[in-house]
């Protein structure tokens, strides 16, 4: 027989290193042709930080994404941005890059204000154009400003630095461990085969508060990837020892989900602005993984009426638990 059940898992997760300084730095340079080079130590390990940092700089400087080059994670030339860990790069390096862009922008504004004869405060930089907010006819192109800067021998460069406000934990574990938190709830529907113990994940709905989705498609990618990893954690991943030796040390027997095991993941992006984040953004990398196993275990429990306290929940464990539950029921009936 096949039984279905639903379960929910919720989580909060602190962004960045716990109660420790974990700063990030960045350099930004605007070139004569209005293209931009970012230097950052932020390592893109596939999560898409290079894309997101370029987007942040493009937004700040009013230029196209395609005009941004990112030089990253090269200790020879890039400033330290800390580890790609703790779901911290969009939040922390994003802020560093934004601040570096803002500092480069100051030079542009200064030069623009001089040329347009208006105060810097009333200028806005968008679409390669500097405009006065008070009178839109007062304008100058970024290209002209860059040409003037070249004439004067002014480099349009900036550096930025961000370190989240935390306070180390005292002896009682009290302090301010993180500057911001991510929140998420996932809902999972499973189908359990009560004769073979096989578990099929039918649907995942994953709602994640990311502050601001700088790149919604990348956020969905993170949520889908995290949920799949969480499904593997719940149902498959296990180091098996025999006489102290790992006997499944290869990916042919240390199993993680394949494309055929992946359920339909419906992502819901929640944007509750984080005031200290770049354009309101915070992190989503690890949070996507955290509630999935909980939700799956709850869904299985909902389907079978049996709780599991050990991962992974394998078909064999399911059958054994069903057998034990049946025997207990029978005994209870006897009395």
């Amino acid at each position: 027989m096949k039984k279905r059940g639903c379960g929910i898992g919720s989580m909060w997760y602190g962004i960045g290193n716990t109660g420790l300084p974990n700063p990030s730095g960045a350099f930004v340079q605007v070139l004569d042709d209005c293209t931009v080079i970012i230097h950052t130590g932020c390592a893109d390990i596939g999560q898409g930080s290079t894309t997101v940092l370029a987007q942040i700089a493009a937004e700040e400087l009013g230029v196209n994404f395609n005009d941004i080059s990112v030089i990253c994670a090269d200790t020879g030339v890039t400033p330290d941005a800390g580890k790609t860990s703790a779901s911290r790069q969009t939040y922390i390096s994003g802020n560093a890059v934004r601040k570096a862009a803002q500092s480069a922008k100051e030079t542009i504004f200064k030069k623009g204000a001089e040329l347009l004869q208006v105060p810097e405060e009333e200028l806005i930089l968008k679409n390669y154009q500097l405009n006065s907010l008070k009178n839109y006819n007062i304008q100058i192109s970024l290209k002209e400003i860059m040409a003037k800067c070249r004439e004067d021998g002014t480099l349009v460069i900036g550096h930025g630095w961000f370190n989240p406000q935390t306070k180390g934990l005292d002896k009682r574990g009290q302090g301010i461990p993180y500057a911001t938190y991510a929140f998420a709830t996932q809902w999972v529907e499973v189908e359990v085969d009560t004769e073979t113990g096989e578990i099929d994940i039918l649907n995942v709905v994953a709602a994640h508060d990311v502050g601001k989705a700088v790149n919604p498609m990348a956020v969905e990618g993170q949520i889908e990837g995290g949920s799949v990893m969480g499904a593997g954690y719940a149902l498959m991943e296990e180091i098996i020892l025999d006489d102290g030796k790992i006997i499944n040390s290869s990916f042919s027997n240390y199993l993680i989900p394949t494309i055929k095991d992946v359920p339909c993941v419906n992502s819901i992006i929640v944007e509750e602005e984080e005031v200290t984040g770049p354009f309101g953004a915070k992190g989503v990398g690890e949070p996507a993984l955290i509630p999935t196993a909980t939700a799956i275990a709850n869904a299985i429990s909902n389907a079978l009426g049996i709780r599991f306290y050990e991962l992974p929940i394998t078909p064999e464990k399911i059958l054994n638990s069903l057998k034990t539950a049946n025997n207990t029921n029978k005994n209870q009936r006897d009395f």
Partner: protein
Amino acid sequence: MYWEKYLKVKTLHEAMEILKLYQGKARLIAGGTDLVLQLREKKKRVSVLVDISDLPELQYIKEEHGQIKIGAMTTHSQLAASPLLWEKVIVLAQAASSVGSPQIRNVGTVGGNIVNAQPAADTVVALMALDAKVVVFNNDGGEEKIPFSELFLGVGESKIDPTSQLLKEISFSLLPEMRSSLGRLARRKALALPILNIGIVLSVNKKENRLHEARICVAPVAPVPMRMKEAEKTLLSRKLSDELLISASKAAFDAADPRNSKLRGNTAYRKELVRVMTYRTLKTALATRGGVGDEAGSITV
């Protein structure tokens, strides 16, 4: 390197001559999906590899006088894409589709799957249920036929010695009103070794609502794929009914003797799966069509 020489041959004759010349130091390589790993892990040692993957005369799937004949170098992908097999021998098409991943199916061959003799090799389970035979060339120029029931000696050990023999062809007879199906359980849906593989081939007599012939092969429940003779006898003993399928599954349960395995599960669990999967695969097999002379639709139990 794990070998000294790698020779790619253009003719069957050439391959046999090389094996003779090197007297046990040369070994045939087909797709290499198992062999290369075994060489790398030093489970097997070899000086010369003789690659026979360019021999078109070893790649075919054909029907001749009620027999299906398959060249040993036919890849799993070719088997899985054969309309002939999907129409008449579903169990083998399913087995070939279950092997590894597309990359492995594209290079791995049915001959390699047989010679390598793993206890639950997908195509072997199907071919056992099909009561297949193999044609083997010896390097003295002779040729012999070996039935599958005699082919396997132990885990990773078959009667065919790839340092002196070449597996040429696999053949089996189509049965009247043949039904077949593969039941497979693994820890995930692709690219995983089976916890259990069941190949079932039946020949039905619709008029009398009973079976002419029943063959069930289960693996891995012993060092080599195993035919469930008692369960087969049970199936032939009476008219078809749900109770009959249940007793046959019980007989398979009784005969299966899998060992406790930390990777595949403990004995009790695996025996229980034999019972459940035998019953389910019998049901699916009865609902299929195939073989020769099958006109009317599926049979209901």
